[in-house]
Every structure is written in structure tokens, then in C-alpha cells.
């Protein structure tokens, strides 16, 4: 089992935004499976103004961000930055053909599956889905991300 101590050496995301607990399978350059137990903090993390969410349902955007972090992990896996992951940033450039299932509730364990479609230079194209207790709650048709050094 690969936990957050290893994850933070590969991607720059940190608490409270780091939305992955562990990696259960990885074939570098090919596919990765990661998990997240959803907490109340996760539910509220990305809300912007508007009514505060106080129910048991976690927004689809949080599920998508968590999946995207699993994608970043696969994209960066075999090329971790020699010093520290914080020396790079990972930015989404496009996300297409996303379908949200759900609802996803607090306390659910998200199981993210990510597959590498193509990698070229500092960009990667990924696809995959998220499953909760056997039900697909998210499908991502195309996710393009770029690794960049942070601007000074």
C-alpha cells in the first residue's frame, strides 16, 4: 500500500486540498488506482459562496478534483521531481466528456481508476472513472494536464 507520505513526494498537492489517501495499484505510464475516504472537510473544500452545503452529499466537483489528483499522480509517477514535488505545479488544461453519477455521500470511499491515453513532454492525456461500492459515480472521457515549473 502506498500512502500519503509517498504521494506527496510525487504531486505538489497538500492538505487540505490533497484528496487521496492511498494508491492500491500502479503500472507506471499505464494505469493507477487510488482511494479516498470522503470527510466533511472535503465536502466543503471547493464551495464558492452560495448557500453552505450542510447535507450528507458531496459535490461532484470534489469527486472530480480527487480523480484529477489521481491522474496527476500517474502522469508524474515515473518522473518525480528530484528534490520535492512542490518544485512543479500541475495544471489542468482541458477536461471533456465528464459524466457525474451519484449522489456521493460523506463517508463514501472513492475508488479512482485512471488510464494514460498518451504522454508527450510535460503533458499527459488521461481517462477513467470513479466507483463507490460498485456504482460508477464519475466518468472522465478526456483529461489533459500539464506539468510546469511555478512562475517566479
Amino acid at each position, binding site marked *: 500500500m502506498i500512502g500519503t507520505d509517498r504521494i506527496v513526494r510525487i504531486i505538489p498537492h497538500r492538505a487540505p*486540498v490533497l484528496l487521496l489517501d492511498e494508491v492500491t495499484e500502479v503500472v507506471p505510464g499505464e494505469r493507477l488506482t487510488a482511494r479516498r475516504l470522503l470527510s466533511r472537510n472535503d465536502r466543503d*473544500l471547493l464551495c464558492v459562496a452560495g448557500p453552505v452545503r450542510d447535507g450528507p452529499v*458531496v459535490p461532484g466537483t470534489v469527486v472530480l478534483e480527487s480523480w484529477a489528483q489521481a491522474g496527476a499522480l500517474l502522469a508524474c509517477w515515473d518522473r518525480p521531481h528530484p528534490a520535492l514535488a512542490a518544485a512543479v505545479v500541475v495544471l489542468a488544461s482541458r477536461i471533456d*466528456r465528464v459524466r457525474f453519477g451519484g449522489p456521493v455521500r460523506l463517508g463514501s470511499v472513492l475508488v479512482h481508476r485512471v488510464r494514460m491515453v498518451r504522454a508527450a513532454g510535460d503533458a499527459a492525456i488521461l481517462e477513467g472513472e470513479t466507483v463507490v461500492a460498485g456504482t460508477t459515480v464519475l466518468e472522465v472521457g478526456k483529461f489533459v494536464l500539464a506539468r510546469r515549473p511555478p512562475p517566479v
Partner: protein
Amino acid sequence: MTGTVVVTGVGADTAIGTVTIGADEAVFTGHYPGFPVLPGVCLIEVVRSVLLTWLGEVGPLAGLDRSRFHRPVRPDEEITAAVSLVRGDNGLACTATVAVAGEKAADLRLRFRSGGAA
């Protein structure tokens, strides 16, 4: 996350909303240390908040058909979202152009289910 959404420029099926997300928000602490930028998916929440403020209610997110992220959004930048609605039998679809400091930050095409929360 807080910040006040202000909706202006309302047309029949269009509206413009603005919101500023402050540097003290937790999201910037971990995304990323030393280089705070808003996660791209937060802009989906910005658009949803504009719709909520404008329409009073909006259902759960059903789909993100297309998105392009052109430029990261930094703390304390005023975010402007121009949204256009397409009402359908199975909920609501919208396109949105998000800009900061006069530069386009993102283009989004979203779908929402009818009714419900989250």
C-alpha cells in the same frame, strides 16, 4: 469557502456574475504551497454559484461536456463569469466564459439535473 457572488447584466438567458476568493481561503494553502492558484474545478463551483444567485436554485451537476483552462486564477483576483443558459426537458445546460484581469481564464460547458441539492 466564502466570497460574495454579485450578479449583474442579467438578460433573458444570460447573466454576468463576479466573485473574489481571498488569499486566506484554505484551498490556497495546499494548492500549491508557494504558488497559490485556484484548482480549475473551483471555476465550475463559481459558475454554479452564479446560477444559484441568479436563478434561486440549480440541480446537481450532471456533466462537464467541455472545458478549457487558459490561465490560472490567483488569490484575490476578481473572477467574472458570463453564463448563457439552454433550458431542456432533462434539466439545464449552460456555457460560461470565465475571466480575470481582462484575460480569459476558462471556457466551460456544463449540464445540471432538475431539482435537488448538491
